């Protein structure tokens, strides 16, 4: 019966919609409902900033006719009096999965990688799917729509959340009636991208973030080439990408640093993406602001960690604790910085959590107006639909909420959510507010009853004298059901009564524990009022700890600045012909070394007494993988198109720890998965700067190559990828370089060519503009690589690892290649069986410029000690040994005119040591880059105390959170994967 009634209701309302008027009608006579509905006496938010205190909203045919204080109500209008209530435009979610069938994870297919695409007639990479259309996978989901409407949403924009290029979305009005003909507001609502591979596709490329970014660059360039009619084959993906060019472009970045990465890709292709953020944008707000992008923000703020077990606290980092504390302020910080954003439910377990999370953002300072904009006008603007949705201006869809008051107030009730003029009742407006204090009489005893909570979902507390009794309440359709159990004998009393307009008291049937029926009366003594203290607590300023640079332990409160500094009376290791100078001063001005000598005048510079201490140039690590978000693009055997510069992680603790070991510069190398790896990032360890701030200006261009077991995939069960032998490695190089040569010739001759980033990079090598740092172990392959280079008329710049370099040191010297090697590593795999710690000394003696490098996040912290081992193994002098970690790697990196030694005019990248830098007993006391002190032993000590204190403060806050009954998450130690060149 109820179902039938409901169906009838739907039909009744359905007649508001006239969209299908050209459809034949066979179920009755054809009618249109041309009546108006007028909502009067309401506070109407036409837009977040245009508010009518006592106005009328007039709608017809699912659209707003007028909303103002002076609406003349037509005669054929149904009038609904909303005295004391408010009307808001209903919410819009730009980033939903609603109704669109999502991709399913492809079951694993063993260890054998799939290198080829699975599709024909589409782009060569399966993860590029701009041809996908959400509309083709769309089925209206009534259940989910109801949940979204209950959370206040009227329109959602949905798409297939899978792959790197994801195709177009669909904009849906959550209209519970009618058909998709009404609901679909746009079937090509936007074009979507992400940094994540398709879960449904198995193609191995791209396996890394940097591969993904390279793929996106190539995709855009190919699309342009295709659009110009250069292709001889059909590519439905590129066609779709070009067709979708004029749509709104939305990119899922999900992290502050990814926001910047994708914005850069957009800039290079003349696209301003709207970016789905990660919630941590506040940590780098200046850079985020500079993107000029609009953002879609998740508000799935983390729960506090359960830190009640003191041992478990060790595992939670300050970074994670801080994030819990700071994250809810993200929307506020963006608002304060004038960045436009909308809010999304996409990563919430259920839309029903939305309000609670939103309230939290508001508690943390987001204004109601900004919150409302983020849910109405801004998403409408993002979607280019400001003339249709997002406000209650005339002509807009009649999508609105009726509430008991401020929509963002905790105690406000959402009564109705109208979509396209169709009513959905969330909470009945006719429900009488029964909240308040009562005196209940039962069998001659008086009980104190307090009813609180929401109007339609009240809570009850029953007390006998001061003892709290177990009690329950239910309030439906104007009937209230209550029960309580006595303390002593656990006997249950049950009551039911009808709520009437005429009396504020509750009365009705009472059932005694023994089943006897009787009557009860509860006399209202006081109406419900929100406790002031609770309200205050909610709006009180939150204790938000300050953001650091970077926002992890040992970050700076403010970014440090360069200081003019005079190091007085030091033992100066110049790494130049001058050798070691005793009792010498070094003057640093504007980030450069300006004077070296005795008794120098400080001239206003800060003076550091370096008596008894040793001053050296900063250590340079020619081979490192710290501070990277990924290290290998292993999806293909050649990956020259990828750039380590794309994946620099400026928050990696390895940076700080390396500074503490006197390291100032390093080459962040691609790994050794492929014969042709990726391009390097050459970094200065400027702790606190954003990723790009770490990369050298005018950085020399490098690329990683690799030989031997890793590129042959010898040490794991992979037998399908070429090359499997050293013979194949040579042929791969010959082939790639030949193709690059032909490509370059075409380009130089002005012939038409398809821009290929990989070939561009290889051509740079052929033209002597880019240098190779080649991972190598055994003498045969070392020799081979040099011969390949000679064949194509270039020179290998550096062999790294090069553990059998000593066997061909004479040939290396003749070729003119340098070496970066371990001091004493061996025996970890078959090809290092003949590795000897005398390697560095032999190569150096044969005239090969030799550096000691780390390829290891621990060893990088003590490269000074590793350099000292060349004295033990092979009899290097102290000066020669020291050069192996300073000027020699600088030479290998073509940076010796800027860093690597203490010389007037060079960058002030300096380390002050407690003793000889080659002694195991010495430690770095200060590490400076371009005049900025990035590590200082004294500051470090203060940081330790500060970290302890801040951790304790946050733990105290989290314990409070737990004891107040809030949800917590179990403690965990977040791990950034650490890389060596073998990591995949």
């Amino acid at each position, binding site marked *: 019966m109820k179902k039938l009634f409901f169906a009838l209701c739907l039909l009744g309302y359905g007649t508001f919609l006239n969209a299908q008027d050209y459809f034949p009608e066979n179920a009755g006579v054809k009618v249109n409902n041309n009546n108006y509905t007028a909502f009067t006496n309401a506070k109407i938010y036409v837009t977040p900033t245009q508010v009518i205190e006592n106005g009328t909203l007039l709608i017809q045919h699912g659209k707003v006719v007028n909303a103002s204080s002076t609406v003349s109500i037509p005669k054929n209008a149904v009038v609904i009096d909303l005295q004391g209530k408010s009307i808001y435009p209903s919410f819009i979610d730009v980033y939903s999965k609603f109704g669109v069938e999502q991709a399913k994870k492809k079951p694993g297919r063993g260890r054998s990688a799939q290198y080829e695409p699975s599709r024909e007639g589409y782009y060569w990479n399966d993860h590029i799917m701009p041809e996908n259309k959400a509309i083709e996978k769309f089925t209206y989901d009534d259940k989910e729509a109801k949940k979204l409407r209950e959370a206040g949403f009227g329109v959602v924009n949905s798409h297939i959340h899978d792959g790197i290029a994801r195709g177009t979305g669909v904009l849906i009005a959550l209209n519970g009636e009618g058909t998709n003909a009404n609901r679909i507001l746009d079937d090509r609502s936007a074009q979507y991208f992400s940094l994540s591979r398709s879960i449904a596709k198995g193609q191995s490329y791209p396996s890394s973030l940097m591969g993904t970014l390279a793929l996106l660059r190539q995709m855009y360039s190919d699309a342009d080439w295709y659009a110009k009619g250069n292709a001889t084959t059909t590519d439905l993906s590129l066609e779709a990408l070009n067709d979708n060019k004029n749509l709104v472009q939305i990119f899922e970045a999900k992290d502050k640093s990814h926001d910047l990465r994708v914005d850069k890709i957009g800039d290079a292709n003349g696209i301003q993406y709207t970016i789905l953020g990660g919630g941590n944008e506040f940590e780098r707000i200046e850079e985020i602001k500079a993107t000029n992008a609009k953002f879609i923000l998740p508000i799935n703020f983390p729960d506090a960690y359960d830190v009640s077990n003191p041992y478990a606290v060790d595992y939670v980092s300050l970074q994670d604790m801080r994030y819990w504390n700071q994250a809810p302020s993200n929307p506020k910080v963006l608002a304060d910085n004038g960045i436009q954003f909308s809010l999304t439910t996409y990563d919430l377990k259920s839309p029903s959590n939305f309000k609670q999370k939103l309230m939290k953002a508001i508690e943390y300072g987001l204004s109601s107006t900004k919150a409302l904009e983020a849910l109405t006008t801004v998403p409408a603007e993002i979607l280019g639909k400001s003339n249709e949705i997002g406000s209650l201006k005339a002509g807009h869809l009649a999508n609105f909420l009726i509430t008991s008051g401020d929509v963002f107030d905790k105690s406000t009730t959402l009564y109705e959510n109208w979509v396209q003029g169709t009513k959905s009742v969330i909470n009945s407006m006719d429900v009488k507010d029964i909240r308040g204090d009562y005196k209940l009489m039962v069998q001659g005893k008086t009980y104190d009853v307090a009813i609180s909570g929401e109007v339609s979902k009240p809570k009850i507390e029953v007390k006998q004298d001061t003892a709290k009794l177990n009690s329950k309440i239910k309030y439906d359709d104007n009937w209230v059901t209550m029960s309580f159990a006595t303390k002593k004998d656990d006997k249950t009393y049950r009551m039911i009564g009808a709520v009437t307009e005429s009396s504020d008291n509750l009365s009705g049937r009472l059932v005694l524990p023994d089943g006897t029926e009787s009557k009860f009366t509860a006399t209202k003594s006081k109406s419900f009022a929100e406790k002031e203290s609770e309200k205050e607590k909610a709006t009180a300023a939150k204790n938000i700890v300050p953001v650091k640079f970077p926002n992890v332990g040992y970050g700076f409160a403010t970014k440090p600045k360069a200081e003019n500094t005079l190091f007085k009376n030091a033992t100066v290791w110049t790494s130049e012909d001058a050798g070691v100078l005793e009792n010498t001063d070094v003057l640093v001005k504007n980030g450069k070394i300006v004077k070296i000598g005795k008794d120098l005048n400080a001239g206003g510079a800060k003076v550091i007494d370096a008596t008894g201490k040793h001053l050296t140039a900063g250590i340079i690590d020619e081979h490192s993988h710290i501070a990277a978000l990924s290290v290998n693009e292993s999806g293909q055997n050649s990956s020259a198109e990828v750039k380590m510069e794309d994946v620099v992680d400026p928050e990696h603790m390895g940076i700080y*720890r390396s500074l503490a070991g006197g390291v100032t510069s390093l080459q962040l190398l691609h790994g050794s998965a492929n014969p042709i790896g990726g391009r390097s990032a050459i970094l200065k360890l400027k702790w606190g700067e954003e990723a790009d701030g770490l990369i050298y200006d005018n950085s020399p261009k490098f690329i990683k190559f690799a030989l031997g077991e890793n590129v042959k995939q010898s040490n794991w069960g992979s037998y399908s990828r070429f090359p499997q032998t050293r013979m194949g490695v040579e042929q791969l190089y010959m082939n790639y370089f030949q193709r690059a040569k032909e490509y370059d010739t075409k380009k130089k001759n002005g012939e038409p060519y398809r821009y290929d980033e990989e070939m561009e990079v290889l051509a740079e090598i052929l033209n002597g503009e880019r240098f190779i740092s080649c991972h190598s172990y055994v003498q045969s392959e070392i020799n081979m690589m040099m011969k390949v280079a000679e064949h194509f008329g270039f020179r290998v710049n550096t062999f790294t690892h090069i553990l059998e370099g000593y066997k061909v040191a004479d040939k290396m010297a003749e070729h003119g290649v340098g070496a970066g090697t371990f001091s004493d590593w061996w025996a970890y795999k*078959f090809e290092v069986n003949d590795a000897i710690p005398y390697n560095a000394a032999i190569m150096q003696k044969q005239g090969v410029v030799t550096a000691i490098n780390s390829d290891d996040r621990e060893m990088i912290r003590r490269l000074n000690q590793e350099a000292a081992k060349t004295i033990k193994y092979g009899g290097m002098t102290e000066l020669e040994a020291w050069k192996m970690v300073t000027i020699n790697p600088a030479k290998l990196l073509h940076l010796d005119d800027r860093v690597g030694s203490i010389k007037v005019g060079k960058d002030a990248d300096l380390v002050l040591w407690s003793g000889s830098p080659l002694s195991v007993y010495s430690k770095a006391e200060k590490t400076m880059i371009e005049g900025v002190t990035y590590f200082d032993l004294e500051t470090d000590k203060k940081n330790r105390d500060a970290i302890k204190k801040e951790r304790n403060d946050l733990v105290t806050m989290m314990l409070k959170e737990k004891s107040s009954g809030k949800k917590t998450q179990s403690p965990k130690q977040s791990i950034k994967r650490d890389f060596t060149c073998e990591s995949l």
Partner: protein
Amino acid sequence: MKRLITLIIALGLALPAIAQQTPGDKQTEAITIEGATAHLGNGETIESSLIMFEDGKITFVGDSKMRIARKGKIIDATGKHVYPGFIAPAKTLGLVEIDAVRASKDEDEIGDFIPHVRSLIAYNAESKVVESMRPNGVLIGQIAPSGGLISGTSSIVQFDAWNWEDAAIKVDDGIHLNWPSTFKQGRWWAGEDPGYHPNKDYAEQIDAIASFLKNAQAYGKSTPKEVNPAFAAMKGIFDGSQKLYVHADDEKQIIDAVNTLKSNGSKEIVLIGGYHAYKIPDFLKSNNIPVLVQFTHNLPVFDDDDYDLPYKLPKLLVDAGLLVGIQNSEAANFQTRNLPFYAGQAAQMGLDKEKAVQLITGNTAKILGIDDQYGTLENGKSATLFISEGDALDMAGNRLTHVFIDGRTVSLETHQTELWKRYMGKYEGK
């Protein structure tokens, strides 16, 4: 077929013509070392020392001013340094030759409770990795199996031997137990969060260990009709003739380990790892637990830790009055030759240099129970010692001129020095 060929090639190349250096002959002539700074391994030094040994035993340790007859061959070591042979505990040296070549690995047997599995019989006395220890002063090692919960039984060997029988100093000295982790890393490759989360099976795993110990103890009290090799192998743990080496790092692990093992009859417990041991020195002291602390050239476990926490762990424990040695059980075997520099690093953090020497000599010998013969330069002890041109704990100073094990003169050549000389010869026409 292809695999077989690979194997043959691997064997062919992995065991080339050059085998290990020939072990030294038994000492026949007395040897006197004069003038060196002697680091005795007990915290003391003798500036200009006189050391004599005969038949493999030290017969005199004193000042070179002593007017006493110098015996046998005299080595003038003025300006040099003498140390007792350094000792590397809890290593798989000789059990693994090349980490990435499975065929060369013998350190980890199948099974969670396999104390009956013995390292000694798989110890390769001719390992090229083992011989590379000696030029750095590392002359003795405890060879321990790894993996599982109870990995097996270790033995202590010296590094100049024809075979494992010759090498053995102390056979089946102890049993190694890996205490379960309180936090476990997510399998990132399977799509899990790569972070560490509380180990849900922790209590169950501890219970399994306790149950095994109880059963082994009960078994030992009976005269069993059927032999249970795993239970039988535990006998020494309960009568104190063998030590139980428990690998544990965090505070809860350590406390649970000591309490569980003590209450289940383990007599001699040694803690290996002990990252958080510095937080509970009193607990360890009152339970009489020595610590073979993790090596200093390691990274802090937690981001917020002091950058130099691993550097100073030994000092923190020594300052707290514990008996401490250094091990690098988690590092690759070849790294074990850097043992002296790990001790040097501890001295960088302010630990007295001679106390740093103790971390790899006298203390370790005491912890392993071989201090009656090894670990210090003392009258009557084994002449297992070496001469270095400089400070052996400092990279640049660690240049050895003489090595003796049980009085035998040990070659300082290795596979690596031979290659060095061969190629220097090539380039310099020698």
